[in-house]
């Protein structure tokens, strides 16, 4: 059986934090945030495609690449070694944890884009209140909050989806915040365990341990607590302040533009960050999935609908 566990999430839902928690398990000193594997740490990295297929994905259209991606992940699952010798995935307890922002989808040939059960033994889906994502996503994309809300509601949204240049990653389709989470929760190929960012904030060690347990990895409570200390949000911010974070979008610096990658890391910050109209729009756009994931609607909008 494959040793791959997908860490799936809509962008800005805490995936990097979760990866840092896993990377800090069983360590005596905190992991350097810039030592996390970057190019091979995400399913959509071009490096994996190019190394497996021996021709450049940059010469294919997004549609042609998508059709071949299942083969790349099958090759990845079959190979014990990573494509680049000095870039290890986040490994722990005999599992390879690989981040993915791709919605769970199928190719035109009917294959799972990420290769299905043949490739991964489990998936951990990290979800976050879309009202908190909006501000963080706007910051990440360098757009306004209203544009971020539009992005989260548009069925054709994607990351790295441009056609006039080669972006460092393959296109990742994000067919709305709700659609993204639905695609992972409702697929029947891979056992999926969802983690709410808000619960991870409240009981980090406990939620981490439960997620690892789901992936078949036993870890002690003490090891989880140690990892939580090493990957505490203020410790990550401190590292970013001192050395920067290479996974931050271009042009974002801790002290300068847009306030850094590890921005707030809070739950419920939307109450100060969003206008009443913006909150109402997100709650209308994402209503069904919000209810399913137990994100309560704001009182204002309850009054409006009630």
């Amino acid at each position, binding site marked *: 059986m494959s040793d791959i566990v997908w860490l799936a999430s809509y962008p800005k839902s805490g995936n990097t934090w979760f990866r840092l928690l896993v990377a800090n398990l069983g360590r005596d000193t905190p992991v350097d945030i810039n030592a996390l594997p970057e190019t091979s740490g995400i399913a959509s990295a071009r490096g994996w495609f190019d190394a497996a297929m021996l021709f450049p994905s940059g010469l294919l259209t997004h549609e042609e690449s998508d059709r071949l991606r299942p083969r790349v992940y099958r*090759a990845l699952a079959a190979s014990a070694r990573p494509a680049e010798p000095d870039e290890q995935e986040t490994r722990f307890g005999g599992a390879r944890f690989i981040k993915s922002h791709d919605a769970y989808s199928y190719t035109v040939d009917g294959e799972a884009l990420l290769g299905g059960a043949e490739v991964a033994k489990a998936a951990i889906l990290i979800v976050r209140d879309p009202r908190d994502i909006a501000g963080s996503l706007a910051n990440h994309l360098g757009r306004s909050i209203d544009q971020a809300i539009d992005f989260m509601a548009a069925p054709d949204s994607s990351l790295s989806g441009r056609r006039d240049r*080669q972006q*460092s990653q393959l296109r990742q389709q994000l067919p709305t915040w709700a659609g993204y989470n639905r695609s992972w929760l409702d697929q029947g190929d891979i056992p999926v365990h969802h983690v709410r960012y808000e619960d991870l904030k409240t009981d980090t060690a406990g939620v981490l341990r439960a997620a690892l347990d789901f992936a078949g990895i036993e870890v002690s409570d003490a090891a989880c607590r140690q990892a939580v200390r090493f990957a505490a949000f203020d410790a990550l911010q401190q590292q970013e302040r001192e050395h920067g974070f290479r996974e931050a979008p271009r042009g974002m610096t801790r002290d300068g533009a847009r306030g850094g990658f590890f921005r707030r890391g809070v739950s419920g910050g939307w109450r100060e960050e969003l206008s009443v109209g913006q909150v109402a729009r997100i709650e209308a756009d994402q209503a069904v999935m919000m209810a399913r994931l137990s994100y309560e609607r704001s009182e204002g909008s309850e009054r409006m609908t009630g």
Partner: protein
Amino acid sequence: MYRYVISGLSVLSDLELPGLIALPDPAGTPDVRLHAQAVATDLPEATERGPNWQIAPDRFTIEVPGVVRMAISDGRDIAYELLDGTMPEDAAIFLSGTGFGILLHQRGRIVLHASAVRVNGHAVLFCGQSGAGKSTLAAALVEAGYDLVTDDFCGIALRDDGLPWVEPDGRQLKLWQVSIDRLSLADRTTAPVRTQLEKFYVEPRTVISSALPLAAVYVLREARPPDAPGIERPNIVDGALLIRRNAYRPQMVERMGQEALYFQAAATINQRAGVFTLTRAMDFNQFPEVIGWLESHWRTLGLLEQPG
């Protein structure tokens, strides 16, 4: 039939290869033949298989699914079969790029994933994986007056004089639309690299046809924390590793047992030329500054004269 010179090898092709410039007709038997032929999906003598490729001692087959299947044999023959009604112009780039790069590996040539320009009679290389900005930097240098030597891959020959030499290609640059716009190259833009791609061939200003001694290899890096911008010389071990990792297809070097060959080439390049890292922001506005760093570095290497 079409004739080209690729990395110093004469090529006879039954297919037009856009992006290659036909150089003066080489006399005699061509070094490489490129021709249409049915290519079997299975290579029974294969010693290793990937998702879309198979390798045997003297033969390599690779498929770009839905586009083309190729068999590259003995370092001198590329047979191709177009798949699913693909037009030749949609497959040609895989033959002249991927197919030829594999052929060079098969010949035991040192082939780096690099674009190169001419600086005062020498070749200067810019290495990096797909998307690292090799072609765009080369294009900016061409605009600054340095002629293009090769794009995307670069064959290096270690000659009896102990020097590494670069064989030019007569190859056009391949640039994405955004680069063409930002570098104002629309007037020299020709055909798309593939019909559905917004990536185009751009004619160089001059065609170089003779080999040049290699003066420096720069490995391109994006300036991201904690890596600071600038030019640095890695230690010899790291430099050797960088050369091998920037082979056109590092996996081929490993699978064909050519590690020692690349290690020796890296030692020679390090000793006779130099391996450097060039770390810069991926920003068109920074090109004048980056070219400034390079020119001042070339002065310290003795490639350009000191000012005044």
